[in-house]
C-alpha cells in the first residue's frame, strides 16, 4: 500500500536531503535512527519510483521513498 507521509528532513549545504523523522497522521512521530542506504529504486508494491532511503527505525528496517517532492512508504518489505 502506498502511503504518503509527512517527513522532517534536513537539507545540507550541498543540496543533499536526509530524512530525520517520520510524522504519522495520528500525531505519533518516529525518529530515523540511521540511514543505511540511499539509491534510486522503484517500489513495485507501493507503486512508484524515486530515491529510496533504507531507514532503521527502532530496530526495524523501512524503505522511505522520495518521489519528486513527496515522501511515501510501503508497509511490506520488498525483494
Amino acid at each position, binding site marked *: 500500500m502506498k502511503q504518503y507521509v509527512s517527513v522532517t528532513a534536513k537539507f545540507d549545504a550541498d543540496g543533499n536531503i536526509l530524512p530525520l523523522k517520520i510524522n504519522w497522521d495520528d500525531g505519533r512521530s518516529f525518529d530515523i535512527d540511521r540511514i543505511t542506504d540511499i*539509491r*534510486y*529504486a*522503484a*517500489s*513495485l508494491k507501493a*507503486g*512508484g*519510483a524515486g530515491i529510496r532511503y533504507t531507514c532503521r527505525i527502532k530496530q526495524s528496517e523501512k524503505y522511505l521513498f522520495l518521489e519528486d517532492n513527496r515522501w511515501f512508504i510501503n508497509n511490506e518489505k520488498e525483494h
Partner: protein
Amino acid sequence: MRTILHSDCNGFFASVECLYNPQLRDKPVAVCGDKDKRHGIILAKNEIAKKFNVKTGEPIWQAQQKCPELVTASAHYDRYIRFSKLCREIYSDYTDNIEPFGLDEAWLDVTGSTMLYGSGESIAQEIRHRIKAELGITVSIGVSFNKIFAKLGSDYKKPDAVTVITKENYKDIVWYLKASDLLYVGRATERKLKQLGIFTIGDLANFPLPLLRKNFGKWADILHSFSNGLDFSPVMKADEVSAVKSIGNSTTAIRDLENFEDAKIIFMVLCDSVCRRMREQGYRAKTVCISIRNTELYSFTRQKKLDCSTNLTSDILKASLELFKGNYTFDKNIRSLGVSVSDFEPDTVSHQTSIFVDEKSVIRQEHLDSALDKIKNRFGNFSINPCKLMFDKNLSGFNPKEEHTVHPVGYF
C-alpha cells in the same frame, strides 16, 4: 567497428501506469486517449493485452471486443516525460551519444565506453538491470554495429531482454525477419516488395540492386544498405539539437466541425500555439501547411508559400484560412485539423521588406504578439485570448502548446 545500443521501453505508457497501479499488473491493460474528447484509441498496451492481439492505434471498442476484460487507463503524459528523462539519465552514465527516438526509444553509441564498462552486451545488461530496479519498468535492448540492426535487435526479443547482432551472426538473425520489420518499410513498400518476391530482409539484401533501383529509385540504395548492415549514420550527441525543419500542431476537435466559423476557432488556437513555439525558438517561416481530416477519416494536406517569411500569428492564420477556404467545401464535416510551418530562417537576420506591405503595421503586430506571449507565459495559456474563442469555450478549450508531445521524427 562501432558498438551501438538501441533501447526500447516495453509498452512504455502501460508499464508506467502498471507501476503506479499495482493492482492492474496482472490484468490486460491499455492506455487510451480521452474518450470524451474523442481521442479514444489505444496508445499502448501491456504484455497481457498484447496476447489478446490488442493493437496500438485501434479504437477502444474494437480492443474490448478482442479482450472483454481489458482495463483502460487514461494517459498521464507528465509521468511519461519524467520516466523518459530518468531513463536518459541512466543512459548518460555510459555515454554522451544518446539519440532519442520518441519518448520511449533511444540509440546509444557506447563505442568509446567499452574499455571502461565492458562489452556492448554487458553495458546493455547493466542498463536493463538498472532500469528494472530503479524505475520499475522493463526495456529490451539491441546491441549491434549499426543503428538499424540495433533497432531490429531491440524488437527481436521482448520484454526485458538483450539481443546481440554481430557481423558474424546477422545473417542468421536479421535475414530471416520479415522485410516489414525494417525501418522505413511501411505498408506500401511492403506490398511493392512482395510483388517482387521479397518477403524477408535476407531476400531484400540479396536482391540485385539495379532491379531494386528501377522499382524504388533512390530508396533502393537505402533499403539495400539497411538490409546489408551498411548503415553508417552516426548517433547524435545528447546536447546536439538537430535543426528544426518544421513546427506544427494538430487536434481532433471535441465535436465535428460543421462550418467555417467552427474551423476558424480551431485554426486560431492552432496558429497561436504554432507561432508562439516558432517565436520561442527564434524562427520565421515561409511555408504554411494545413491538414484536414473529415468524418470519414479521409485526410489531405495543402500548403502554400508566403511572399515574405513571418512569425506573426495573424499572417499564419490568414494563410491557413485562405488555404482552407480554397480547398474545402464542407461536403463532409471535419474531425481534425492541423497547421504546420516550415522553410525557416532565423528571426535575427534582417529580411526583405515589401513595398506593398505597411511595415509600420507589421511592427505593431510584432509588439502585440510579444506582449501576448509575455502575458501567456506568465499567467497561463487561457489568461488572454481573442474574443472569438470565448463564444465556444468547449471547442477552443484545448492547449496544443503544452499538451504537445514529441513523437518520433524521421530517421534522416
